[in-house]
Each structure stands twice: as C-alpha cells, then as structure tokens.
C-alpha cells in the first residue's frame, strides 16, 4: 500500500494487491473511516478500482498534517462488513438495443445466446464510477467475454446501454460517445437529478442483470421513476 501526496490538497492511497471483491471492500471501508474521522476537512473521497483519492480543504489543515492523519488510519478488512446492496438491473438483449452483440459473439466464437447467458449469470461489483456522472465500471466479467475496446469509438451510444471492454461491463447513464461493445440496454435511470443522491447505487455495491423482453423494456421505460429492486448483503 502506498500513500502519495497527489496535489497541495489531495492524497492518493494505492493498493498493489490483486483486484477482487475483497479489495473493493477494503477500499470502501477505508473510505468510510476517513469520511467519519476527518469529515471536517474533506471535500471529496474518490474510490477507484485499486486506489482512493482523498481531497481535503487545505485552508483547514496542511497537506503534511493531513498526510500523517490519513496514514495513521488502520486499514484492512473490517470485522463488521460494510452494508452493501445487490441491485437487480433489468436488461433487454434484443438486437434493437444491442448494436454490437452479433459482431461481438462472432469474434468470440460464441452464440448470441451464450454471450447473454454468460453476461447475466454473474453478480458484478461496482468497482468505480467515473467517465460520466453515474457511469459504472462493473467487474470482473467471465474470461470468455474479455475484449479490447472498439478500435473506433461509437459517436452516439444511447442512455442505458450495457457495454463490454477488457474484463469489465458498464452501463451508460446518458447518451455519449464511447468505445465499449454494446450488448444490451436497461430502461431505468442510473443518474437522476430528481433525487438528493442521483445514483441509487455506489461503488462497492453489486449489480445483477435480469433479462427482460422488449415489451417489458418499453413498459418500464414509460414509467420514468422506477428504481431497481435491491437486497442488503
């Protein structure tokens, strides 16, 4: 584990261990400890796949003093596991929402049905959010779905699209250009400014994809305020 003074008001904590659910839990528990103990100094805590960036108010404390404080926090897995949630996200894999499914399946020597089956059979960790407000990096996918990003990004990926790249899958919370292979779409909102917390999920929560039909997709889409089901684990 490495502590690094990233800027005059931020400290980066990086773990060198393998990326897995345990690491995500460790980061998440460190994040909440810092948020509880040093709330008065904090501007932001940003969790990514193997690191945590802590941004603080340098008018309130010097970077050297804050560095010492952060470093003194004991890390590791907590006995009381943090409450995280599994969210059930509806996905329609119909070709009309899956612009890259056919080509992707061919390139992997899999049938479209196989790709769908493999994709929805796993529960994914939300490893990080970024790129766009509410964009989720979910991992890890089954090795059979591993792929490079598309050589040319698509200019207009639709809101709700489910993508694959490297050993991750993602959800586009808004229309955007992007380089992930699109294999389906979810009709729900992933970033909604109507709510005080615009994202229903957070890093370290989990996502389970539930396959739905095209007609179900359309009917959920009409009911704008629908939130996915969740259970605490």
């Amino acid at each position, binding site marked *: 584990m490495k502590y*690094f*003074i*990233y*800027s*005059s008001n*931020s400290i*980066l904590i*990086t773990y060198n261990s393998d*990326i897995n659910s345990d690491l995500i839990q460790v980061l998440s528990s460190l994040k909440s400890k810092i948020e509880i103990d040093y709330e008065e100094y904090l*501007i*932001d*805590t*940003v*969790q*990514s*796949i*193997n*690191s*945590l*960036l802590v*941004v603080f108010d340098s008018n309130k404390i010097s970077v050297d003093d804050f560095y010492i404080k952060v470093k003194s926090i004991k890390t590791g897995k907590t006995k009381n596991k943090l409450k995280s949630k599994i969210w059930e996200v509806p996905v329609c894999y119909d070709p009309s929402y899956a612009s890259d499914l056919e080509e992707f399946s061919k390139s992997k020597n899999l049938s479209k049905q196989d790709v769908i089956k493999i994709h929805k059979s796993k529960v994914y960790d939300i490893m*990080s*959010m*970024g*790129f*766009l*407000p*509410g*964009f989720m*990096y979910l991992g890890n996918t089954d090795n059979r779905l591993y792929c490079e990003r598309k050589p040319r990004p698509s200019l207009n990926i639709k809101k709700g699209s489910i993508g694959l790249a490297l050993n991750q899958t993602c959800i586009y919370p*808004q229309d955007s250009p992007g380089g992930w292979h699109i294999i389906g779409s979810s009709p729900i909102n992933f*970033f909604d*400014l109507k709510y005080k*917390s*615009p*994202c229903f999920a*957070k*890093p370290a929560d989990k996502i389970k994809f539930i396959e739905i039909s095209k007609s179900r997709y359309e009917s959920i889409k009409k009911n704008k305020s629908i939130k996915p089901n969740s259970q605490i684990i």
Partner: protein
Amino acid sequence: MIKVIDPGLYSSIQDNGRFGYRNIGVPYSGFMDNESAGLANKIIGNKESQSLIEITLMGPTLLFNNDYTLSITGGDFSSLINNDKIEMYKPIHVKLGDTLKINHTKSGARCYLAISGGIDIKSILGSKSSFKGITSSYFLKKGDEIKIINNDKSNFSFNCKSVFKIDSVLHVSKGPEFCMLKKDSLDMLFNKKFTIGINNRMGYNFNEKLQVGLKSIISSPVLPGTIQLTPSGNIIVLHRDCQTSGGYNRILQLNEKSLNNLSQLKNGNKTKFKLIN
C-alpha cells in the same frame, strides 16, 4: 434580467464548482481562472464563489433590462457600453436599456463578467456551474434571459488594481506515474518548450510528443491539473471540467496557480514545465 443578443464564442455560467460528487463521476466544473473570477466578484461586493459569466476568446453582446452594477476581470478584452469604452477591474453601473459588448481578447483567453447579486438560477448538486448532463443549458445562446439576484446593499469599497499577468512557465509536482518516464523524456520535459494545441474546459493538448509506448494504467482518479501521457506520447493537462478517472499515466500535477494561468493561454502559445517541491 439580462438578455443575450449575441452569445460570443463560448460563454457559460460558472461559480467556484461542484464539490463532493466525484465518487459518482460528477466533475468539479467551475471558474477556469479562479483568481480572476474571485476578483470580479469581490470588486462589486459579491462572495468570491458567486456565480458569474465566463467568457472565452470572443465576448457576448448583452442587453440590460434593469439597473445593475458589474465588473469585468481576467484577460484583456475591450468592452463597450453603448459604444463607450469601459475599464476592467472597476465597478461599472449600467442602466435599463444599456448594451454591453465585449469584443475579442487582446491578451489572455478568458474574462469574467460578474453582476452584483449573482445569477439567479437553480443550484444543482450544490453548484450553478454549467456542465453537460448536469445543467439543462451549458453555454449561453442567443435570446437567453439571465435572471439576476436582487441586491441593494452591496458595497463597492474593495479597491482593486489589475494583477493580471500571463506566465509561460507552468509549475508542476510529480504525479503517481512520474517514475515511468525515461531519462531523455525528463530532459525534454523540463528543458524544451511545449506548444498549446486543441483545448477546452476539459483539457489542454500539447503539440509536441513525449515518450511513446507507455502502457495504460488501471482506471484511476484524476483531478483538474493532472497531466497525463497517452500511449502515443501525447501530453494532456486536465482542467476544471475533466472527468473523475482515467487510464493514462499521470506523470505530473499542475499547481492551482498555474492551472489558473493555463486557462489564460491560447492555442499556439509556448510554455515550459518547471518542477517544484
């Protein structure tokens, strides 16, 4: 109310930024040149963080439908009220029916137009700063009507001398992947000049290439001021609207003062990086 007759090249409403939501992927946004923007507000008795209009390279034409007090700071843009030239870094009183025309820049890339009281729009996630995907409108358009918060008791006693100065030297500290740079890359980085290329509120590209072939890193947090090196050797300085994480090597970090300064540099300007501790 202020009516937009002509929006200029790129004018947007900004305050000091949207903090506390990077963990869900929301950028900071906010004033590109914090120092100049803060002064524009101070001159007319606003809080330094108050919302105002950030203007890029070529200014807007605005019609006032009420009496206001305003100030303009930052890059040297010549400005006229009903054809009379006005001074920057001073409170200016305008009347209903007056027109303000901010021309293009003579030096610097951005100027700041603050209006006493600040801009009356809804704050979203704690900020009024424009950002696509967060605010419904993210730059001024012809015909827009900008509401101003009523303010009768401001004081204009803050006496300000223009301190505006553009520096070609950018002050940087080491980034987390600094150690990935080879000796000849370091020599080039700290001895050669770099030319500013395509740029916007998200980031600044440079025309010269540095070390080629660095493998991407696992997607990791970045901040405004983070200097990335792409596998093809391009240098990118991230700015206020930058995304929250990225997979390029983070070789350097620009300090806050130089980040303000960079926002006043233009395509084609030459700069040098200087390492500080």
